[in-house]
């Protein structure tokens, strides 16, 4: 995770001068824990990754998207199961995390959906996943690839 000095006066200056140098407002305090994913069979099936995203700072942060060299279309999805027991999943949109709070991406709920895999996900390997935030900041985490039948980072 990149850290840059956060100076309020400078932030406005940079904005006015049109420079692309990022000045973060919150995302530098984001910590990603317990990331894991399941191996894939080839590249035709989408993969999924899970993790806990913790906001240890004083500002609310908004997770806006994902990027990874592993997949052309990574997206945060949410699985929902209705009263009839039918599960469906859809893009979750932006995710706001209040100061001191965390959001869990876990099986059956939020997940990092990895569509259009560029390479098969092989058990024992890892891949970098970058979370992008509304303040322009990014947090990159190295995600371990567990077995297809894995139940979580401990199993």
């Amino acid at each position, binding site marked *: 995770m990149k850290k840059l000095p956060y100076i309020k006066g400078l932030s406005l200056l940079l904005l006015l001068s049109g420079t692309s140098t990022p000045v973060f407002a919150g995302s530098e305090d984001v910590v990603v824990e317990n990331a894991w994913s399941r191996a894939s069979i080839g590249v035709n*099936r989408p993969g*999924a990754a899970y993790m806990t995203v913790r906001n240890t700072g004083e500002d609310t942060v908004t997770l806006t998207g994902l990027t990874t060299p592993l997949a052309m279309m990574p997206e945060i999805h949410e699985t929902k199961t209705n*009263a*009839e027991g039918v*599960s469906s999943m859809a893009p979750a949109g932006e995710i706001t995390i209040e100061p001191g709070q965390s959001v869990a991406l876990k*099986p*059956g709920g939020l997940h990092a959906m990895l569509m*259009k895999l560029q390479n098969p996900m092989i058990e024992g390997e890892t891949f970098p996943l970058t979370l992008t935030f509304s303040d322009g900041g990014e947090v990159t985490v190295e995600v371990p690839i567990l077995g*297809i*039948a894995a139940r979580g980072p401990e199993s």
Partner: protein
Amino acid sequence: MQRRHVVQYGAAGVGAVALMLGVGWWRVDGPGAPKPAGQRPLPLSAMDFRLTDHEGNEVGPETLIGRPTMVFFGFTYCPDVCPTTLSDISGWLEDLGNEAAQMNVVFITVDPARDTVEAMAEYVGYFHPAIRGWTGPANQIARAAEGFRASYERVPTEGGDYTMNHTASVFLFDAKGELVTMIDYHEPREFAVPKIRRALTEYVEGAT
């Protein structure tokens, strides 16, 4: 609670269904039709469908009668719910050990277009060896889902692919093919394993 909502929004629902008729026949009348809440699966003896298991054997509901049975609907292109449920089932079977040895455990695909016999064989191979994968022609999958009162629906995703919404509950039948109970998605293991034991116990009682 559910029923009251249906009554309250009944008028609006009729309007919505009328609107959907032109474009959504498949969802409304086709195999993807949502089943009313609370409808219980038929006994296995009252179901009628012909599928193929992942080893190429012809199978049907009668294949399951005589032993307690666990059935789950899903598809192998499912990144979240299906591997999670199959690994949960694998964990339950491990917990039960020898007790589960005489059980049928079947994963029926709702996506036969992509889930060929070979695809099912490769996929189930990653989970507990007791799990069988069943696939077949779309109309037979539809008949199976009908019998279990399960529903599924093909949903296009960005980029030209599609995913499937589907019933994610696990169905438990006794050895006579009568429904014992269902295990809902997200149900903790401390509830799931005793439910499976109940299906197994009814098997023992039925055998004596």
